[in-house]
């Protein structure tokens, strides 16, 4: 059989000679069917485990990394804004702002630790994680010095704060963005790996070949013998059919789920995260414009650009979120509406400051009403993000379903096919002895 094909010279000729007499042909058919069966089993195992590993990587590493990168970024931006607002308030820092700053730093460092675990040791992401770890420590040291000086009434505290803010905005936030964008790319690549399209198509091809070979073998046997049906071969065909249908249905479910996770999970998650970052950036611009105390400057221009992006139809915030989930659509509508209110409050802040009423502008900017409006936007966006994260997790788990069955069951069924085929043809072969 197949082992005989191996070594000695003249093997090919002898194998070729087999097809000239019936027992030889039967031997060849056994080799073919068993070979195809074994190949299919092997491919089922490999394709199943490759897709499983890809899906797990996507769900357990790439997507969480994206969320963590966003957390680091937004926590840093928020810490910067909070520190500037505490400074604007004058006097002793309001305890609510101190608490929020502490929370921000805690979130950033926690996310940074787990992001480090999910990042390969070399490459740009790793560099970003290293710069961020060192930078966050330096940043918090600068802010702590600023606070200590502020408590003693020394104006140098303000200079420490501006040094900290420079570090945050010019070094840390760009690195966090780099990490965020890198994670986005990894998620996109992750969908390819999870699909394991190459292995899956080889598996389907091999199963198709096996089916055709089984069909042709049975036709040959029914013509050569008086028996119309060969029961073991029929069983082999049935098992192969089951395996093929099972594989295709697992494959289809997985692809559908992956598509849904990508288009309705990862995609919206990235847009909502972007909205949250932009909103925080706008709020930071406002505080920094007031802290600089030099009228509308470059931060105000940045505010305008950001606000335009967030209020634009088809942008990251105003989009067709309701087509994904009506509840999500409502959440995002509330966020967009809240942001419009905030922008109008901001115009009042600028009008006050530009007309010389600095104290009034500060009061309006960090006062309860504007703060509540902005916090409202943030909470809606958080809620929207949770909604999509949940959806993603659910779809990615469903995409993984059945892959385990394929990895284990596929090879077993294929072995059964081999066994049935062998038994079926072996009986015919015995008749020539």
């Amino acid at each position: 059989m197949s082992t005989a094909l191996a070594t000695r010279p003249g093997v090919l000729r002898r194998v070729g000679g087999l097809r000239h007499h019936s027992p030889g042909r039967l031997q060849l058919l056994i080799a073919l069917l068993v070979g195809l069966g074994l190949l299919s089993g092997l491919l089922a195992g490999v394709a199943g485990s490759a897709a499983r590993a890809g899906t797990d990587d996507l769900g357990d590493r790439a997507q969480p990394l994206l969320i963590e990168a966003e957390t680091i970024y937004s926590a840093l931006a928020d810490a910067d804004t909070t520190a500037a607002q505490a400074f604007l308030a004058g006097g002793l820092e309001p305890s609510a702002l101190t608490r929020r700053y502490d929370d921000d730093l805690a979130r950033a460092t926690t996310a940074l630790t787990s992001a480090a675990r999910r990042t390969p040791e070399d490459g740009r992401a790793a560099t970003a994680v290293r710069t961020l770890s060192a930078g966050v420590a330096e940043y918090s040291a600068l802010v702590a010095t600023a606070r200590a000086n502020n408590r003693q009434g020394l104006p140098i505290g303000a200079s420490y704060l501006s040094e900290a803010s420079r570090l945050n905005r010019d070094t840390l936030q760009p690195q966090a963005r780099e990490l965020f964008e890198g994670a986005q790319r990894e998620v996109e690549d992750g969908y390819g790996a999870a699909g394991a399209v190459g292995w899956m198509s080889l598996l389907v091809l091999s199963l198709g070949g096996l089916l055709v070979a089984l069909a042709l073998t049975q036709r040959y046997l029914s013509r050569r013998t008086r028996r119309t049906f060969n029961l073991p071969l029929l069983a082999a065909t049935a098992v192969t059919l089951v395996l093929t249908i099972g594989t295709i249905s697992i494959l289809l479910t997985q692809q559908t789920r992956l598509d849904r996770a990508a288009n309705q999970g990862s995609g919206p998650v990235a847009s909502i995260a972007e909205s949250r970052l932009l909103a925080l950036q706008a709020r930071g611009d406002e505080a920094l414009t007031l802290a600089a105390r030099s009228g509308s400057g470059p931060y105000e221009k940045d505010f305008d650009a950001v606000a335009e992006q967030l209020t634009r139809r088809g942008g990251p915030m105003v989009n067709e979120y309701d087509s994904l989930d009506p509840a999500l659509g409502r959440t995002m509508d509330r966020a967009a509406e809240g942001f419009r209110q905030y922008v109008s409050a901001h115009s009042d802040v600028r009008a006050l400051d530009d007309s010389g009423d600095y104290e009034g502008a500060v009061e309006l900017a960090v006062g309860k009403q504007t703060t509540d409006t902005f916090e409202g936007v943030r909470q809606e966006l958080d809620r929207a993000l949770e909604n999509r994260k949940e959806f993603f997790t659910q779809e990615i788990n469903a995409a993984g379903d059945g892959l385990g069955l394929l990895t284990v069951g596929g090879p077993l069924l294929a072995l059964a096919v081999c066994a049935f085929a062998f038994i079926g043809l072996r009986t015919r072969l015995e008749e020539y002895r």
Partner: protein
Amino acid sequence: MRIRAALTATVLAATAALAGCAGDSSPLPVTPDRPQADAVTPAPAPDGTKPAPPACNPRASLRPTGSLPEPGDMPAGSYMATIQERGRLVLGTSQDTLLFSSRNPFTGEIEGFDVDMGRQIAEAIFGDPDKIQIKVIGYDKRVSSAVDGSVDIVADTMTANCERWVDVNFSSIYYEAGQKVLVSKSSKAKSIADLGGKKICSAAGSTSFDNIGKEKSKPIAVARPAFGDCLVAFQRNEVDGISTDDTILAGMAAQDPYAKVIGDKFTQEPYAIAMNKEHPEFARFVNAVLERNRANGTWKKTYEKWLGDFGQAPPPPKAQYR
């Protein structure tokens, strides 16, 4: 706090260049927004490319005419009337020069000797010193802000010199300062002459920065957006010393018990209020206010309020006119 004043500086550099102001130090080849990288910049050589300003007596300002108008009743057509109509005087200053103009961390208000100068002008116009809007400007924007009219007056430890007289009108001198150097308590240096090769910080666009480069001992001048940033750099051991006017250094030494001011004044820095050149009547008005306040003891009271810790108030600088 001048958060990212650097960015402001870069963006606004174009505006300043447009005005072509001789008085602002030419755009410095530093990137203060990258605090680690900006470190060392040699100050412009004395034989730099800037054309020499016409010779002048920087202390001599425009002579006041007649008596001061009553507050709230500015002569029609004058720039004071424009300010009165607007309802507030716009003062350009800094917010991190302790004693002259710095933000009081307890109240959030900007206060100091310079701010009080502005408040006295506001009082003369409105009868109310609170009708003032404080706009914080970078050191390298002091001339251009007066030129482009974004502020009415600049009172920001600003030295009157011939180079700046080309672009702005100065009032008569309201304070006589001079440059010194601040170092760590442990330093053995006696004056700037002993600081050759050391990194000495000053604010970008200040005359002090240029003066460091002119020193024979060749210290290395380091620019930061503001003097507060210099003190941060000093405390973080990024520079060995800070050199600028004795008054500003005194404010810094008051915040850092490990710092000391050494040597004699090696320059003369007469402070004056800068204004737009198109309104000579406003400069005359400001000089009349200063003249009155020298005579009636207001100047002395202001000195004692902010600088009293340094001893008896000296006689106010004598006004000189053209």
